[in-house]
Structures are given as structure tokens and as C-alpha cells.
């Protein structure tokens, strides 16, 4: 790993650690159990809608982290997949009365379908060019969403019904919806973990650390990068679709570049390239937005300030710092 490399920020020099339960190391397995416990217990103490927002963004941030943390590609356009996922899920649920499980999968499918050509274009460049290209392509999606008839323009799609899961569970009650969101989040989280620890994931990390060497070993690195991009975009679409059902709304905010920035911020705050960082980062940022909502535009200033502070002094992020202090990878 090159010194000062962005992907190296979160982790510490990896000792060879025995992979146990689900490929987690022992400290990670412990942290995962804490996470599961928190997800199970918290709706009885905290407002479920607030928690669902955190979980949706946590999944979004984990999807984003798959790309930056494990392939070393910084996408500045993930709002496109998240937002289009929200639009498609919302439209399918509202206009076609598609059941929620299918609507969310459609959101994921549109994210992946969009990620395929965009990723194919963007992986032609790396580093800051990659970031600028993904940002520009996402802006194109924003203009599309602004003009296309089905997105409802400035109003967005409103009053999206949550529907009935599998035709059995009515999701109108917040707590019922919460269990669905929790399940989606945990499955997504484990899926990402599984991807990262598969042979495919090993090649991804090899590309991040030294692409020419991976190429010389005979791997078609572009195929791996594209695959990671599509997976990341698809999961972002699922996160967006779930969010659309939770809040019954899909708007231009979901596809705007500020949303792309927000997911970068969450991952940065939690720790780039850490397993649990994106979840912690999402929780921190959403909580902050929640409490500071009354201050209006100051939220932007504070978020910018956090960005600056993280980049200048806190590049490992919360989870990265904890891991560093305890000398474990989290």
C-alpha cells in the first residue's frame, strides 16, 4: 500500500489473522454481535423512522465503501444509483402497485443497470479523474430526473405506499417496516463482507494495492473493477429504494451531488476501508442532521467543517482510530 494512500487510511498494517465465523476475525465477530444487538434492541428505545434512516444510509455507505475501501476508487456520483433506486422503487410501488419486496429489488436492479455503463466508462481513468467522471455522469442523471415525466420533476414522487410484504405483513406500521429495513441492512452488510472475503474480494484488494502487479498475475483488472462498481451501484439502488418506501417519497435531493458528498462524508467519518466504519459514520451524520435540522444552512457549514477536520486530522475515522488504538482491524 502506498504511503498516504486513501485506501490505507482506515486499516492498520494487516497482521495475518485467523478468519473465523463468516470470515470475521474475533474482534470483528464481537463488533458484529454488538451491531446485531443494537439493531434488534434500539427500536424499543428510539424512534423507528430515525433508525430506519440510519440503516438505509448505513447500507448506502457500505456499498460506497466497497468501492473506495476495497478497490481504491472514489466515486463522487453514488447519488445517481441511490436516487434512481428511490425513483424506480417509488414509481413501481405507487403506479404499478408492485409489492415492496419486488419494488426494492427493482430499485437495486436499476442501480446496477445504471452502474454497468457508467462504471464501464469511469474505470478508464483512476484517481481524481475517476471521481470527476462519476460526478459528471451523476449530474447527467440529475438532469434526466429533473426532466423525465415519471420522476415528478421538482415535486418528486410523493405518497409512495409501503405496501404489504409477501402479501402477509402490512408495512404501514413503523415497527413492522423497521424489521424489513433491518433485515435488508444486515443481509446487505453480510453480503458485502462475503464479497470482500471471497477470492473475488482478494483480487479487488490486490488491484487496490498494486494494479500493475495484479495485471501481471493474469487478472483482467478492468473486469474486477467493473464488477465491484456494479455491485456497489446495485446495493446503493437497494438502499435508495428502501429509503423511498420508509419515507414514502423520492425527490431530486436523492440524486443531487450533495447526496454523493454526504455518503463520502459518512464513510470518511466512520473510517474508509473499515468494515464497520460506514455504519458508524452514517449513524453519526444522520444523528447530527437530526439535531441540527433547526439551524438550516448551518448544517452544510458544519458538514463541510467535519469534512475538513477529517481530512486534515482524522483520516482514519472513528472506527479506524478505535481499531488503531486496540491494534485490531474493525
Amino acid at each position, binding site marked *: 500500500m502506498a504511503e498516504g494512500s486513501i485506501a490505507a487510511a482506515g486499516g492498520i498494517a494487516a497482521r495475518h489473522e485467523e478468519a473465523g465465523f463468516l470470515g470475521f476475525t474475533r474482534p470483528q465477530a464481537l463488533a458484529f454481535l454488538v451491531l446485531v444487538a443494537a439493531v434488534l434492541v434500539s427500536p424499543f428505545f428510539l424512534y423507528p423512522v430515525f433508525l430506519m434512516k440510519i440503516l438505509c444510509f448505513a447500507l448506502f455507505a457500505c456499498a460506497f465503501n466497497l468501492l473506495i475501501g476495497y478497490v481504491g476508487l472514489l466515486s463522487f456520483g453514488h447519488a445517481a444509483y441511490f436516487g434512481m433506486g428511490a425513483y424506480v422503487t417509488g414509481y413501481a410501488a405507487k403506479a404499478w402497485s408492485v409489492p415492496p419486496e419486488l419494488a426494492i429489488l427493482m430499485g437495486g436492479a436499476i442501480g446496477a443497470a445504471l452502474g454497468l455503463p457508467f462504471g464501464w466508462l469511469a474505470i478508464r481513468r483512476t484517481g481524481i479523474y475517476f471521481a470527476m467522471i462519476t460526478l459528471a455522469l451523476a449530474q447527467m442523471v440529475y438532469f434526466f430526473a429533473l426532466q423525465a415525466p415519471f420522476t415528478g420533476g421538482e415535486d418528486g414522487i410523493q405518497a409512495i405506499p409501503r405496501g404489504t410484504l409477501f402479501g402477509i405483513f402490512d408495512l404501514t406500521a413503523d415497527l413492522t417496516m423497521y424489521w424489513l429495513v433491518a433485515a435488508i441492512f444486515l443481509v446487505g452488510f453480510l453480503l458485502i463482507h462475503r464479497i470482500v472475503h471471497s477470492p473475488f474480494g482478494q483480487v479487488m484488494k490486490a488491484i487496490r494495492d498494486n494494479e500493475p502487479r495484479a495485471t501481471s498475475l493474469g487478472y483482467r483488472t478492468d473486469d474486477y473493477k467493473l464488477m465491484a462498481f456494479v455491485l456497489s451501484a446495485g446495493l446503493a439502488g437497494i438502499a435508495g429504494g428502501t429509503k423511498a418506501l420508509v419515507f414514502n417519497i423520492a425527490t431530486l435531493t436523492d440524486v443531487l451531488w450533495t447526496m454523493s458528498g454526504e455518503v463520502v462524508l459518512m464513510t470518511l467519518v466512520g473510517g474508509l476501508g473499515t468494515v464497520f466504519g460506514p455504519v458508524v459514520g452514517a449513524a453519526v451524520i444522520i444523528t447530527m442532521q437530526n439535531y441540527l435540522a433547526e439551524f*438550516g444552512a448551518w448544517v452544510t457549514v458544519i458538514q463541510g467543517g467535519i469534512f475538513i477536520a*477529517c481530512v486534515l486530522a482524522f483520516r482514519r475515522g472513528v472506527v479506524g482510530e478505535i481499531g488503531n488504538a486496540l491494534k485490531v482491524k474493525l
Partner: protein
Amino acid sequence: MDDLLFELSLILPQIILGLVNGAFYALLSLGLAIIFGMLNVINFAHGAQFMMGAFAAWMLLNWLGIGYWGALVLAPLLVGIIGIVIEKTMIARLYKLDHLYGLLLTFGIALVIEGIFRNEFGSSGLSYATPPEFRALDLELGDFFLPGYRVWVVIVAVVMCLATWLVIEKTRIGAYLRAAVERPQLVQAFGVNVPRMMTLTYGAGVALAAFAGVLAAPIYSVHPGMGANFIITVFAVVVIGGMGSILGAVVTGFMLGLVQGITDVFWSEASATVVFVIMAIVLLTRPAGLFGRA
């Protein structure tokens, strides 16, 4: 003949409009290219600094009574100084790290600047009257009306870009600059203060953005989001042109503004996205950009 004149009166305003947009693309991507060349940082705050230039012009006029011509000099100076402070206190700490950190940092700076202006001035636009001197240049040909101020913007942008190019290619300072881009350590060994050059380069790039902001103030409404709208398109322009050459950035900027203006005549819905489509095509055929070095 009448038909042709009619057609022309339809297309000409769009061409002018396109050239005006192109002028801003050129000025902004020029600043980005200079900063990137020297500092290896993509200045995400460029749009915010452009916006600050426009607001500085408005504040100079409404608070201090200093008019357009004064603002054209003072605003870039003031914003440039802010840029120098930003470089000294923050960006300079990141040169040894991954270039992506520079992008993230300047993104944060852009958020802070935009948020502060949103708090002070709200999201709706302020208007900055076109200086009356330019009324005399207004051109009216039948249905066709050409505001003199827009012609001035295009001309002054071209002059500014050429002047910047001349400074970089033909002067002693420019030679130091080009040398420092290639081999900073060697230039430093010859006794040139490279860190100070980097600071001044950032200040100059920022000043250029603010200068564009002052030019833009009478055309677009002055509002906190005006820079963000521009900068993403300018990023696409930079990807299309490649950041290898100064003239490349300028030519690409004007060219894409023109393409956008003409697209607006034939298919107005596509005018916002045409630049991004061109970017995709360029990436497919020449990934390094039209003027870029691989």
C-alpha cells in the same frame, strides 16, 4: 435572404449565449488546470470561489459604493488572498498524501463557503445591474438583440486566457512555474522557493475564478449555488480537454459552450446533458482527453 436572416436571428443569440457560457468554462477550467498542474489538487472549491467573486462585486457595490471596474480588480484580489490563506493553512498539509484527499478537503471548503453565504444572503438570487457603459455597445438588428455586455465578457475572457498563457509560456516566472511542475526538487535546489510558488499559484487560480465571478454577476443572478452549477460541468470540460495543456483547457471550454448553445436551438432538453455525453464519447475514444497526455 429574409429567411436566412430569420434563421440567423434564431441561432445567433444562442451562439453568443454559448460563447458566454464557454467563456466561463474556459476561465474556470484554466484556473483548475493551473492549480492542478502545480499542486496536483483538484480544487472542488473553485465553484464556491467563483461565487465569492460575484458576491464580492455585489458587496463592493452595495456596501462600499465601488462599481464594476473597481470590483473587477478588487474582488479577485480579495478572494485570491482568501485562497492563499486556505492553501497556507489547509491544502499545504496534504501534498504528501493521496491526491483524493485534496479533492475531499476542497469539497469540504466549498460546503463551508456555500453554507455561510446561504446563511447570510438566503438561497434566492441578488441582482447586479449591468454597468451602463455597455448599453452603448448593445446591438439591435430587427428581431435580433445582442447585449453589449455579453460581447465584452467573451472578449475579456479570451484576452485573460491569452494573457495567462503568455505569462506561463513566455515569461521568467512562467518558466520557473513550468520547471517546478516537472521537477519540484530540482527547482528548489536552484534556490527557488517552491512552496511559496505553490501558494501563489493557488492564489492566482482562485483569483481567476473570482474574476470570472465578477464577469458573471451582471449576467446570472448572484446566488450561493451559482458556482456549484457551473463547476460540475467544468469538471466534465476538464475531463474532455485533459489537463495537460493550458490552451487545451481554453479551447475546450469555448468549444463546449458553443456546442451547448447550438444544442439548445435544436433540442433544448439535451443542452444540459450534452457536455456529459461528449465526455462519455471522449472517454471511449481518447481516455486521456483531447489535449491530455496519457
